């Protein structure tokens, strides 16, 4: 059994630690706030000889992902980290990484996208990359960020998946806050992730392969995309199996969604990332006052856990979905759209209300969570109809 050590550490620090423990052969990365301390700490490991990883200090995020793609196709275990504009600059390469079926691991420090420029937390960056074919995990805490990084390695490299995996943690809130984190010993982590056995590696020069061939008009492009969908569907079972195995090792439960108070809840709030803590804190008080409220946290964003959410939210009198990202021109944020879709096939209609909150690091105060639960109570009691999209906590005049 592993040795567990409890640390007081930031999310970024334990992500860097998890990466070192997973023994990547190549890291190619470019600094961007608030991801920077991941690549700084990793550079420290390189300087101190604590990793035999080849560290490529590229000149942009586009080149970071380009080099990761080359290194992964070459047969290496490859990791990187980015945020916001960096993830946006990688966008072209995100599709290529998944299309070439390369199991690259990337941490994303969730941060707002320009304009206006803003370095603080929201999910605009990752939601902009939601259709790039990456398996995507979300962390609420530094602990989850650590755990997700390790699980990501196993999920990505699973023969039924062979897709890149992104592990997201909230900028500053999780990346920079010091939290209590339990880390495992190096050997246990190395044993859990195992050795990467690449197929069709460029460096296997005895059997030369061509990567990135042209599949033009009439070519098999369409069928390749179908295989990609099959792979990310396969990831559901793999995420679940890897999660179960990791839970046994770490002693911490893992599921595609995490529910709180849902056994007898009448109304529920669905959230992603660090705000789940705020929601639970408020829900705990309301329960003490006799309100039957629950919280559902989504940990796996892609493949999206439709069935799990439908099962958890079935029979709710009202559901609130909190989005820390916009989908301009749509009915609500990306999570809202997915949750509504997950509930569509239920026989009894569940009223769903969408909230946009916390963009650009706008403060997520407990009063805001209280307001959401109060709206839910009104809808459940029939004293109010679900409102249109609510910009939660936005000032009337900026």
């Amino acid at each position, binding site marked *: 059994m592993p040795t567990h050590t409890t640390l007081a550490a930031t999310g970024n620090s334990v992500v860097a630690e998890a990466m070192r423990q997973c023994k990547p052969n*190549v890291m190619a990365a470019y600094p961007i706030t608030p991801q920077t301390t991941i690549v700084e700490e990793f550079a420290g490991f390189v300087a101190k000889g604590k990793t035999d990883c080849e560290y490529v200090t590229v000149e942009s995020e586009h080149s970071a992902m380009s*080099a990761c793609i080359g290194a992964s196709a070459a047969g290496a275990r490859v990791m990187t980290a980015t945020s916001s504009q960096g993830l946006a600059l990688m966008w072209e390469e995100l599709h290529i990484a998944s299309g070439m079926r390369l199991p690259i691991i990337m941490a994303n420090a969730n941060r707002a996208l320009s304009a206006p420029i803003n370095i603080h937390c929201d999910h605009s960056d990752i939601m902009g990359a939601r259709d790039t074919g990456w398996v995507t995990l979300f962390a609420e805490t530094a602990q989850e960020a650590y755990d997700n990084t390790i699980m990501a390695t196993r999920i990505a490299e699973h023969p039924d998946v062979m897709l890149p995996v992104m592990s997201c943690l909230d900028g500053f809130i999780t990346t920079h806050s010091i939290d209590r984190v339990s880390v495992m010993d190096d050997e246990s982590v190395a044993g859990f992730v195992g050795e990467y056995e690449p197929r069709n590696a460029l460096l296997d*020069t005895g059997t030369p392969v061509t990567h990135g*061939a042209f599949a*033009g008009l009439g070519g098999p492009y369409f069928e390749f995309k179908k295989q990609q969908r099959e792979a990310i569907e396969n990831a559901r079972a793999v995420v679940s199996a890897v999660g179960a195995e990791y839970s046994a090792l770490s002693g911490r439960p893992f599921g595609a969604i995490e529910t709180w108070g849902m056994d007898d809840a009448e109304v529920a709030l669905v959230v992603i990332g660090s705000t789940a803590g705020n929601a639970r804190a408020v829900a705990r008080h309301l329960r003490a006052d006799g309100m039957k409220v629950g919280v559902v946290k989504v940990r796996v964003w892609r493949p999206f856990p439709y069935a799990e959410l439908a099962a958890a939210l079935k029979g709710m009198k009202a559901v609130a979905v909190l989005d820390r990202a916009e989908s301009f021109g749509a009915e609500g944020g990306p999570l809202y759209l997915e949750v509504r879709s997950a509930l569509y096939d239920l026989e009894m209609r569940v009223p769903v209300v969408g909230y946009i909150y916390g963009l650009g690091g706008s403060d997520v105060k407990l009063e805001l969570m209280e307001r959401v639960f109060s709206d839910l109570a009104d809808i459940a009691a029939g004293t109010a109809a679900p409102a249109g999209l609510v910009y939660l906590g936005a000032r009337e005049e900026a």
Partner: protein
Amino acid sequence: MANLKELTHREDRLAGGHRLCAGCGASIAVRQVLLGAGEDPVVVGCATGCLEVSTTIYPYSSWKTPFIHNAFENSSATISGVEAAFKGLKRAGKIPADKTMKFVAFGGDGGTYDIGLQALSGAMERGHDMVYVCYDNGAYMNTGIQRSSATPKGAWATTAEVGAAQQGKIQRRKDLTQIMAAHGIPYVAQASISHWKDLTTKAEKAFAVEGPAFLNVFAPCPRGWRIPSSQSVEIAKLAVQTGFWPLYEVEDGEFRHTVKVHNRKPIEEFLRPQGRFRHLFSPGNEELLAEIQGDVDRAWDRLMARCSQV
């Protein structure tokens, strides 16, 4: 140094049967460069463009060596990743410590001078043990002859048209070889498909040095230059003989003119056979022609002043 008889015995790593046009300079450049790689295995990277599209039409591949295409602007970053993997896997004991390999990235002038310049500069600065080869045909040929920063002044291109208000491309071309020399990398050279011995010798040197090397290879495009397929090598030769494309190398900062041109021909001899320059010979463009000759002369004088043997 390369010897023709010996070269004929080396394995051709780019197989025939690819879909590049007859007379395409790119495939000639690739084959000659790869002959210079010697016996070591070579991983080839390639930017999006004619070369990549025409050699890897799934499920076929002309590459008898490991090959990767990623995107347009990043063949240098991609190959730098492959080279990093080689180092990392050696350190992890997954590749024997004594194994040697070569890494080369190809790109056209669009993928090198323009959209790929940042990634190229970064890869060279980081010191990867790799060779970058630009096959310069002076325009975006794959998308249909649009001007690039390598297109010569006065050349017609589909985005540098000829009409009453404009006589082809207005601007001078970018001198990328000099920019790469300014990176202070171990080896930089300018070569041409018309001078096979010079080109293969330079490729051998580029592969032999430890660290990054850059080759800029003049590679005519019959389709884009409006020349017969049979004339690619002849035109490339004229580019050298007129001083439009001097053959030189920069070894550890030392400039050397590798193929001497004793009686430099007037630039007109390079321009006249090409349809893309036809308008320059219409009445009224005499001044423009003189300007182009003046540009070639000045660049030539500057280069010769830098070469240790003139």
